[in-house]
């Protein structure tokens, strides 16, 4: 049997876990959370089986890559059969590995972090569903199934961000996340429908073949690509739909880790990668992807620089890096983007878990201005956080360094006019990581923080385990085996072994180190906690701190336009449609009856007169109407 076919088990485990924990959790010891962990652990094991199977299997080639999978009927509507099935190719295998590993670690971590929560079972159940949906998304072989799980991912993010729903801010953030991503989903759905309309199938392979064969008009194809990208923008928090992600840290911190590292936001990047044949056939759309990615990267980086909330800084950093991934995709850096996705995923998971660890110890405190010197009391956290931060900052030899280099290389190759901006983004990225790192963990420990202690091993353990790949995963890019590394495993159309461009590498290394040094100078060394950079920015600072007024603009649009329109429509409905259009005629009929009744006067001779007049008319009519 083909071991790759087992891939469907990976999400299935977690789906089953979801139902088991939800419906039976109450009756199980420990509220069944172990089922959840067991399921994802099982998934991780199966992942290795699949990986081995995949490497050994002789899968048919599609777009230059070995692609396995199967599909089965879901239901038939009219004469169209809708199916679900899986696709096992390098892209999905890589994603599977990352999602299962990060997911497993985070779940274990959650055991400690969420200890004592009254809805622990629900938490783990939704967690499982979240991971399951993401895994299914990765495996989906047709757009319909993809859309289904895509929405489920959104639902789970909604449920988890709003996990502490008694908090107004959490429920608002959850709502914001769901609605914002749904706006993107509208595009995605229309795009999918458009493609179906053109090709008559939801199957990805069928659609891609049609797209590459030129069966779809260029304009339509570009439109479809852009619509799909709109969906990706929502999920992957691309400008201007990125506003939900910073708010999303209202959920429990492990959830943020999950969202930022493995599941939610990765979905958008994955989608563009998955649909890359379409994008490739529509280069205009790719340019848009690149530009949007770049804008996102820059804007988010600038905001990360001024944010004072630890999780927000990390969130903006995620947005910024997602922008870089999009930029990379837009610059045909397919491999680079996924590579960066993986590297960033591990790093960001470590960072969030670290942040969670800090918050766990500091009574959910997130304001970095109240921290400082925490490495003294939380050594493990500090160490892992440092690894993650440096990796993201692009410090040489760590994972982020390699992947970012790949991205820059892709930009240089295909969109060189954007390179300068990309470098700025990379620089800023290192700078804000430095800021977060140094302000929180270095410098002087505050008096009120003396009691802070390291987190329990269930939390530190996963952090350590994740810090390892965050540090070393970059090396898979190198030709460590005879197969030629990551670039020859995962590629689009043609294998593209890793090339290290020395000029660019050195430049970006210098850039990162420079930024770190600058950060150390500004934030780490000095005991002052006044943000020196913020002070220099002046008016710009205010704009950035107000998130470029985007939230305000959206709020204003909702309050002043959409709700107003809704009110007007509702009022129209009541006054015009109902009271005038419906009640009006009814009242008119009623009123006319009230008037007509007065012809019955109660006087007999009036009646007689009426009869006579009627009689005369009848007689006359009869006379005049007759045909003879």
């Amino acid at each position, binding site marked *: 049997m083909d071991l790759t076919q087992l891939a469907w088990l990976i999400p299935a485990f977690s789906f089953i876990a979801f139902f088991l924990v939800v419906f039976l959790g109450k009756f199980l010891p420990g509220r069944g959370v172990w089922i959840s962990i067991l399921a994802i652990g099982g998934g991780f094991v199966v992942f290795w089986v699949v990986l081995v199977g995949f490497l050994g299997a002789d899968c048919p080639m599609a777009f230059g890559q070995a692609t396995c999978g199967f599909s089965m009927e879901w239901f038939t509507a009219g004469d169209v059969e809708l199916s679900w099935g899986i696709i096992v190719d390098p892209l999905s295998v890589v994603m599977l590995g990352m999602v299962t590993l990060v997911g497993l670690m985070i779940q274990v971590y959650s055991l400690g972090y969420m200890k004592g929560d009254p809805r622990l079972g629900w938490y783990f159940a939704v967690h499982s569903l979240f991971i399951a949906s993401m895994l299914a998304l990765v495996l989906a072989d047709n757009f319909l199934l993809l859309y289904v799980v895509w929405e489920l991912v959104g639902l789970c993010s909604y449920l988890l961000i709003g996990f502490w729903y008694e908090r107004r801010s959490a429920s608002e953030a959850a709502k914001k996340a769901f609605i914002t991503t749904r706006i993107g989903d509208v595009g995605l759905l229309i795009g999918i429908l458009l493609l179906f309309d053109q090709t008559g199938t939801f199957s990805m392979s069928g659609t891609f073949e049609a797209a590459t064969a030129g069966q779809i008009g260029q304009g339509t194809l570009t439109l479809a690509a852009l619509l799909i990208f709109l969906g990706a923008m929502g999920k992957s928090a691309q400008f201007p739909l990125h506003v939900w992600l910073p708010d999303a840290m209202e959920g429990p911190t492990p959830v943020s880790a999950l969202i930022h590292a493995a599941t939610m936001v990765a979905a958008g990047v994955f989608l563009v990668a998955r649909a890359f044949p379409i994008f490739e056939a529509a280069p205009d759309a790719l340019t848009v992807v690149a530009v949007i990615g770049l804008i996102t990267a820059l804007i988010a980086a600038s905001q990360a620089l001024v944010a004072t909330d630890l999780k927000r800084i990390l969130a903006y950093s995620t947005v910024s890096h997602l922008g870089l991934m999009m930029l990379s995709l837009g610059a045909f850096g397919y491999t680079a983007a996924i590579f960066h996705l993986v590297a960033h995923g591990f790093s960001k998971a470590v960072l969030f878990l670290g942040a969670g660890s800090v918050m766990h110890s500091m009574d959910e405190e997130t304001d970095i201005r109240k921290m400082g010197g925490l490495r003294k009391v939380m050594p493990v956290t500090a160490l892992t956080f440092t690894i993650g931060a440096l990796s993201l900052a692009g410090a040489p030899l760590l994972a982020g360094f390699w992947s970012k280099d790949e991205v820059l290389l892709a930009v240089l190759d295909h969109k060189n006019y954007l390179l300068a901006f990309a470098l700025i983004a990379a620089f800023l990225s290192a700078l804000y990581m430095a800021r977060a790192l140094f302000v929180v963990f270095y410098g002087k420990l505050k008096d009120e923080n003396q009691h802070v202690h390291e987190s329990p091993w269930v939390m530190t353990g996963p952090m350590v385990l994740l810090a390892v790949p965050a540090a070393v995963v970059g090396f898979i890019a190198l030709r460590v085996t005879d197969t030629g590394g990551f670039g020859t495993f995962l590629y689009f159309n043609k294998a593209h072994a890793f090339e290290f461009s020395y000029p660019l590498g050195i430049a970006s290394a210098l850039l990162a180190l420079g930024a770190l040094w600058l950060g150390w100078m500004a934030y780490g060394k000095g005991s002052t906690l006044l943000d020196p950079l913020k002070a220099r920015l002046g008016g710009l600072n205010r704009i950035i701190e107000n998130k470029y007024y985007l939230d305000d603009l959206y709020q204003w649009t909702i309050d002043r336009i959409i709700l107003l329109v809704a009110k007007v429509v509702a009022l129209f409905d009541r006054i015009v449609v109902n009271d005038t259009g419906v009640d009006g005629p009814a009242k008119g009929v009623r009123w006319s009856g009230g008037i007509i009744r007065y012809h*019955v006067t109660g*006087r007999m001779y009036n009646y007689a007169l009426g009869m006579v007049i009627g009689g005369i008319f009848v007689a006359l009519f009869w006379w005049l109407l007759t045909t003879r």
Partner: protein
Amino acid sequence: MSLEFFQVLSVALFSIGLYGVLARRSSVLILMSIELMLNAVNINLIAAAAFLDSAFVGQIIAIFVITVAAAEVGLALAIILQLARNKSTVNVDEVDLMKW
């Protein structure tokens, strides 16, 4: 002298009676006007029978009309009498308890 003479006379008498019904207030006078109308009907019937119909159906009908008219007057007057007892009036515009 032809049928038209009688017919027009009949219509005229009918109209006079009709006017009486429409314009009078006293129920007794209304009743009298109705009798005028019935007489007009009879003139018409008998004239038609005399001039045109060898079977004289009109005359037969007229007999019945007279009979019914007499009965009608009797019954109506009984009701009018009761009305006069109850309300001390026979004017129809004073009996409008029920209207609209």
